[in-house]
Structure formats: C-alpha cells, structure tokens
C-alpha cells in the first residue's frame, strides 16, 4: 500500500478521481442552487432534504469533506515534489510557448478555490451546524431561501464569490478533461470530452455567479 501511494501514477489517479467526484458534486450543488432564482419553495424543499436526510448528512457529507481534503492535500504534496524535481530553475523559461496558462497554474487557481471554500463553509456550513447542533433549533423547512439571499446583501461577499467562480472556471478548464487523460482515456472520444469540459467549465461557474448577482440585486425587503 505504501508502495502504491509512492507511485506518481497512483498519486495522479487519486487527484483525478477526487477531482471528478468534486465535479459531480459541483453539478449537483448547482442544480439545487439554481432553483433559488426559479422557485424559492423548491429551493427550500431541496435544501431541507440535504440538511436533514441521514444518508446525505452522515454518509455523503463526510465523503465530500474527505474528497476535498484528499484533493487539496495531494495537490500541495505534488506541487512540492514537482518543485524539487527542478532544483535549479531556468534563467529563461517560456512556458506559454507550449502549454496554456490554466494548465501551468492549477496551484494558484486551486489555492484561491481553497480559500473560497473556507469562506463558503464559514458562511453556510458553520452557520448550519450552529443552528442545528449548538443552538438546538427545531427543523424549519422554510428558512433556507431567506438565509441564502441575506448572505449576498453585502457587495464584498458577492464580489469575492464572483472572483472565486472565475478561478473555478480556470481550474475546471484544465482539470476536468485532464482527469480522463490520467485515467488512461485518450482516444476518439477525447475531442468530445474536451468540448464538454469547456462547456461545463464556463456554464457552471457562470451560473453560480449569476445566482450570486441575482440575489444581491434582489434582496428580501423587510
């Protein structure tokens, strides 16, 4: 087992699988969030289901947290190893001549997304844990929409979210299709995978940004 984790290919596969899992989660997260601009009641129903369903809470949520931790820890471990592999740097290195910026700077986009996840967890997850387990409030299936809209009232939070979604788009542009190459898929379907990656990497973060802007511009009037 220790031999396996020392293998560069196994480490790549761990990055790819955890990344693909997070991509799947992102699609699911977006599907629920977009209902908040279409029908607040549906958003409340789904949010309540996610917040109280035992399968989601005690199985899927820990798997998701583990997936995030594995992806980021492995990402930083690989970055340190890759820096060591070129002890003496070039005086002149023209990286843009042979590889796009997004593929060469996954650590930058990844670090910004990690910081964003910290803020996002503080905004929603910590609040949710306190509401349920510390304050011991009873179930209220109608509260989610108002709580979400309220979060986007301050312009600073909305701007931070939008910037993070832009970096998420850049991260996905390389990471999504790259996962397939790592898993050994490079064949006649690769052009289709790359096209789908581009569409996903643009549409999903743009959609998240739209939701944030929509709620900022449409606050709940008390």
């Amino acid at each position, binding site marked *: 087992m220790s031999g396996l984790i020392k293998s560069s290919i196994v480490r790549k596969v761990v990055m790819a699988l955890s990344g693909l899992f997070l991509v799947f989660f992102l699609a699911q997260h977006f599907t629920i969030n977009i209902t908040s601009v279409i029908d607040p009641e549906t958003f409340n129903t789904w949010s309540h289901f996610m917040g109280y369903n035992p399968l989601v809470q005690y199985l899927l949520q820990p798997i998701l947290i583990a997936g995030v931790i594995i992806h980021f820890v492995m990402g930083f471990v690989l970055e340190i190893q890759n820096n060591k592999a070129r002890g003496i740097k070039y005086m002149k290195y023209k*990286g843009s001549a042979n590889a796009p910026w997004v593929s060469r700077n996954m650590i930058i986009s990844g670090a910004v997304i990690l910081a964003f996840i910290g803020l996002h967890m503080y905004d929603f997850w910590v609040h949710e844990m306190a509401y349920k387990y510390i304050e011991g409030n009873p179930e209220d299936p109608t509260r989610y929409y108002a709580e979400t809209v309220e979060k986007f009232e301050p312009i600073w939070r909305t701007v931070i979210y939008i910037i993070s979604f832009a970096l998420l788009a850049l991260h996905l542009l390389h990471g999504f299709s790259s996962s397939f190459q790592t898993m050994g898929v490079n064949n006649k379907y690769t052009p289709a995978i790359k096209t789908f990656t581009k569409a996903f990497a643009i549409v999903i973060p743009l959609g998240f940004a739209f939701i944030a802007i929509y709620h900022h511009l449409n606050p709940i009037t008390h």
Partner: protein
Amino acid sequence: MNLNLKIWRQKDATSKGQMVDYPLKGVEEDMSFLEMLDVLNEQLINKGEEPIEFDHDCREGICGTCSMQINGQPHGPDRLVTVCQLHMRSFADGDTIVIEPFRASAFPVIKDLIVDRVAFDRIQQAGGFVSVNTSGNTLDANAIPIGKDIADTAFNSATCIGCGACVAACKNASAMLFTSAKVSQFALLPQGQVEATERVQNMVRQMDLEGFGNCTNTGACEVECPKGISLENIARMNREYLSATVKG
C-alpha cells in the same frame, strides 16, 4: 547577422555556474545552431579561452544529445527539431539568445551545456526490453503477423530518441512522455505483451526513484518533442500501470 549570446558556463558538476555574454558577429543564416556555436568556439580557442562544452554526435536529428534550452524552450523555437536541425534563419539580426543546459534534478549538469541523462538509461534498463529465448530456436519476429495500424503506432513510439526535451519542457520536470513511449513500443506488440505487467511497474518505479516530477497533463512535452511523441503514450502507460496494479 550579429548576435548577443548569453550562455551558461559551469566548470564542472560541483562548481557554481553563471551566464556569460558572448557577442558574435558575421553569423550566416544558413548555419545550424551547432555550427554557430562551433564558430564561437573557434574564436574562443584562438583567443586562448576555454571553449563552450556541448554534446553533439550525429548532427542529423537522431542522437538526441544536444540538451540545450534556447530562449526558454528545449531545442529552441522551432517545432519537431533538435538543435542541429535548428537554423540561424529562425533568429534575427541583433537578437539576444539565452542558451542553458536542460534543467532537472535528475539531469545534473556535467559541464557548461552538457547534462547527465543516465537516468533515462536506468529507466530503460528497468524494463525497456524483450527477453528472448536465445537457445537457437527463437521465433523470427517477422513470422508473427501484426496489423499495420498497430505496427505504425508502435513504431511511432519507438522513434523517441531519449533526448530529454520532454523533461526540459515540463514545468514539473516529469519524464512521463519518455517512459510511456518506451513502455508503448513494447506493449503494443505481441512480443512485448508477455512481460507487460513487470515492465510498466519496473519502469515507472525507476522513473519515480530518479526524482523526476509528476505529470500534470500540461502537454508541453508533446509540443516540444522533436519526434512528435504524443500524449496518447502517457494515457496508454497509465492504463497499463493501472491494469498491472489490479493484476498485482
């Protein structure tokens, strides 16, 4: 044309090197890059200075010894060429050209622009071969029918000259393209499939032991490879490795 050359000078493997400026006049655009360095070396020798050491052998693009990073790119700005095939017409009069050795912890500099690429030999020795029965009744390889598309793909992988441009170009100094080409050239053919499991495991293990970085699929290696080795080889090696790992 007149050029300003900035060249890495390093006395030996343990010395600290530095960039040195060499103005060079009267360079012909039809010269190869190595011929341009020959002219510079003649001038240095005539002045009683130490010539610049660089590796070269065939000067026809197949030995893969010319381990130079030119203006930030392995083998310079042209595609699908080694340094001997790079001509001075690719540069303009008055250009500054930065010439460094390939940089990777697994490719230590021996002197000036010469790097030690024995790490590649050790990867090859770990499994890049087919063990044949040499007792006198060996089956002629040509007696085994192989589809043309498979034969062509295996041949394309086998055209890797082990120059190290993939490592030099990769931001992580990864040797995945080289190793995967050497794995692929055997994995695709029936003669190589007998030892496929141990081969890929042993070669990847040796590659990791040499201290090369991890592949992040930037594709820089494929772009800079003078022989056009494609990323499909890396995907194939990943499949081979995962399949070998599952088999145990």
